[in-house]
C-alpha cells in the first residue's frame, strides 16, 4: 500500500460546504412537503450527504451522473442550482424541468445530471446507455450511476452490470446502502453476501466504504474514477449509510428501531468532518459561518421558488412529442 496524500483543507472545506448545502436543501424540502408547497413524493437525502459529495468531488463538469428517487443530493453535488431545484419542487416557472417533473424527476443536462428517476433502477439502465454514447462519440467523460440497496434485487441491475463489463464502459456504479427499501429491511430479501458480491460476480472492480465518511468516499472515488478514465472499464463503489428520516418525507419510519436511528445519527457525516477539520486547525466559528451562509442561500432559494409563478397551463401540453402531440389528438 502506498500512502495516499491527505486531501487539502481547502478541498475538505469545500466538501463540508457541499454536505451542509444538501442537508439544508432537503430539510427544507421536507418542510415544503409538510406545508403543502411541494406535492407528491419527496425523498430526503439527509444523513447520506457524504456519498454524493465524495463521489461528485471526483467528477468533472462534463461528466454525467444518473440518479434515483432520492436524487436531490446528487443533483446539488453535481452542480445543479438549488434555486432551480427549489422551483421544481414547488412546481414553478424556472424549475429545472419547468415544474413538470417535481422531486422525483429533477434533472439538469447543462450540469451533466441526467435525472432522478421514479422507477427502480431505471436510472442505472440509462447510465449504461450514456456510457455507451460516450464511447461511441469518443468523448472524454465518465458516467456515475447512483442507486439504492433496493435496486440490488431487480433484474435490470444485473443486466447493467453484465453489460457494462462486457463492453468495458466508462461507468461508476455507486450503491448507497441505507439498509432499507421503503419499509423493508433489504437484507431480509437479499441472498448471498449482498451488494458488493453482486458486482464482483461480474468481474467488476469494487471498493467498499463507510458512506458516512466523506474522506473515505472521496479517496475511493478518486481511485475508481482514475481507473475508469484510464480505460479500465466499469467500477463499483459500495457505500453504507442511513437515511435519518422516513422513506418519503411524510413517512414517520415506525418500522425502524429508534435505537438504530439514534446510533446512525451519532455517525453524522457532517459532525464527523467538522471534528476532522477542527483537528486540522479550522476555527469552529468558520464552520458555523459556513452553515449560516448555506442556510441563507437555501432560504433564498425557497423564497425565490415561493415567489415564482406557476407555469402557464399550456405547458401541460408542450414537449410531449414533435409530431402527433396533444394538439393533433
Amino acid at each position, binding site marked *: 500500500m502506498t500512502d495516499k496524500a491527505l486531501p487539502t483543507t481547502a478541498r475538505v472545506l469545500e466538501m463540508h460546504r457541499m454536505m451542509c448545502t444538501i442537508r439544508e436543501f432537503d430539510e427544507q424540502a421536507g418542510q415544503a412537503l409538510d406545508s403543502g408547497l411541494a406535492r407528491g413524493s419527496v425523498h430526503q437525502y439527509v444523513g447520506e450527504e457524504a456519498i454524493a459529495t465524495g463521489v461528485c468531488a471526483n467528477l468533472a463538469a462534463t461528466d454525467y451522473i444518473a440518479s434515483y428517487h432520492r436524487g436531490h443530493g446528487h443533483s446539488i453535488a453535481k452542480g445543479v442550482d438549488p434555486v432551480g431545484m427549489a422551483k421544481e419542487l414547488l412546481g414553478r416557472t424556472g424549475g429545472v424541468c419547468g415544474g413538470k417533473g417535481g422531486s*422525483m424527476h429533477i434533472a439538469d443536462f447543462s450540469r451533466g445530471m441526467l435525472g432522478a428517476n*421514479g422507477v427502480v433502477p431505471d436510472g442505472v439502465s440509462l447510465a449504461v446507455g450514456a456510457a455507451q454514447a460516450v464511447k461511441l462519440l469518443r468523448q472524454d467523460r465518465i458516467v456515475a450511476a447512483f442507486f439504492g440497496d*433496493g435496486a440490488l434485487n431487480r433484474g435490470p441491475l444485473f443486466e447493467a452490470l453484465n453489460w457494462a463489463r462486457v463492453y468495458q464502459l466508462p461507468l461508476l456504479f455507486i450503491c448507497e446502502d441505507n439498509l432499507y427499501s421503503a*419499509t*423493508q429491511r433489504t437484507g431480509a430479501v437479499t441472498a448471498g453476501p449482498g451488494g458488493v458480491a453482486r458486482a464482483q460476480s461480474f468481474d467488476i472492480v469494487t471498493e467498499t466504504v463507510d458512506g458516512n465518511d466523506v474522506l473515505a468516499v472521496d479517496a475511493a472515488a478518486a481511485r475508481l474514477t482514475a481507473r475508469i478514465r484510464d480505460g479500465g472499464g466499469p467500477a463499483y463503489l459500495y457505500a453504507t449509510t442511513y437515511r435519518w428520516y422516513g422513506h418519503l418525507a411524510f413517512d414517520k419510519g415506525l*418500522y425502524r428501531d429508534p435505537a438504530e436511528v439514534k446510533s446512525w445519527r451519532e455517525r453524522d457525516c457532517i459532525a464527523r468532518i467538522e471534528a476532522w477539520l477542527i483537528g486540522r486547525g479550522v476555527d469552529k466559528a468558520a464552520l458555523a459561518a459556513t452553515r449560516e451562509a448555506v442556510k441563507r442561500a437555501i432560504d433564498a432559494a425557497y423564497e425565490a421558488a415561493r415567489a415564482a409563478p406557476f407555469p402557464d*397551463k399550456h405547458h401541460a401540453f408542450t414537449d410531449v412529442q414533435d409530431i402527433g402531440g396533444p394538439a393533433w389528438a
Partner: protein
Amino acid sequence: MGVMTYAEAARLSLEQEMDRDPRVWALGEDLGPEGGVAGQYRGLQQKFGPERILDTPISESMIMGSAVGAAICGTRPVVELRYADFGFCAADEIVNQAAKIRYMLGGQVRAPLVIRQSVGMRNGMAAQHSQNNEALWVHVPGLVVIAPGTPADTHGLLKAAIRCDDPVVFLEHKELWATSGEVDPQAGPLPIGVARLVRPGADATLVTWSSTLGRALEAADALAQSGISLEVVDLRTLWPWDRDTVFASVRKTGRLVVAHESVRVGGFGAELVAEVAQTMFPALKAAPVRVASPRAPVPYAKPLEDMCRVSADMIAAAVREMLPADPSGPLAGT
C-alpha cells in the same frame, strides 16, 4: 352494514378470502410492516404469517413470473404491483405468460391470479406514478379487467377476482383509498362483468368507472339543476363489460358519453363508443362523446396536472353540448 374506506374494504375482502381458501396468498413489496402503501394489507401478515403474505424484494418481473408459476401449480396468488406504473416492469410476465398460458398449453392449466395495480393521479405524483393503463390490459386476450369505484364494489369484486380462474387485473384508484362508503362486511363476491346503474336518468347515458364515478355524479347533480336527467352507469368490470346494461341505457336515452381519467386516444371509451355505434346506430340521437385525459404524460405542478384531469364541469358540458339547445322543448317526451 358499516362505513369503511376503500382501502379497508379491500383489506377485509382479502382477509375473508384467505380465511376461506388456504390456497390464497399475496406477494409484493412492503406488505408486512406497514400493510401496503395504503394500508390495504394492514395486519394480514400478522394474522396469516410471512409465507402467505410474502414480502418480496423489488423484483417485479419475479413477483409476477413466480405468481404465474404458483398459479399453474395449485395456488391462487394475489400479486401486489404497488403502482400501475410498475406494472410495466412486469408487463412481459402479464402479457406473455399469465394471459395466454392456458391457451398456449391447450387448456391444460389455468392461471388463477389477481394482479393488483393502483392507478391514477393523486396530488402531484407526476409522470411515472400517475398512469392509468387499463386500455392496455383490456387489449390483451386472456385477461379480465376490473376497476372498482366504491368500497362496497372493491370488497365484492376483489372476492370475485380471487375466486376467478382467469388472471384478473384489479385496478384500484389511489385517490379512492381514503374515501369511505357503506359496505356489508358479510357480503359475498359481486358478479364480474355486471355494471351498476348508479343513477337512473332519461336524457343521456354516462358510462364511467373508478374515481371518475364521483365526478360523474357531481355532473349529474349539476345537470339536474337545469332539468337535465343523466343516467350514470358504473361499468366496474372493463373486460368483459356489461353490454346489456349499457345498450339498454343508451337505447332508452339515445345519447352516450363515456368519461374516464385515462388518455382519451386509444382509451377504453373508444371501444365502448364504437360498439354502441355499430350495434345501435339508429337508436342514437347524437354522436357519442368521450371525456378523458389529453394524450400527455401527467405533469407535476398542480395547475398543469389539473389540465389532465376530467372534471365534473367537463362531463356536464359534454352532456349539454349533445342535447338540443332548449332542454324543455324538443327533449320533452323523448
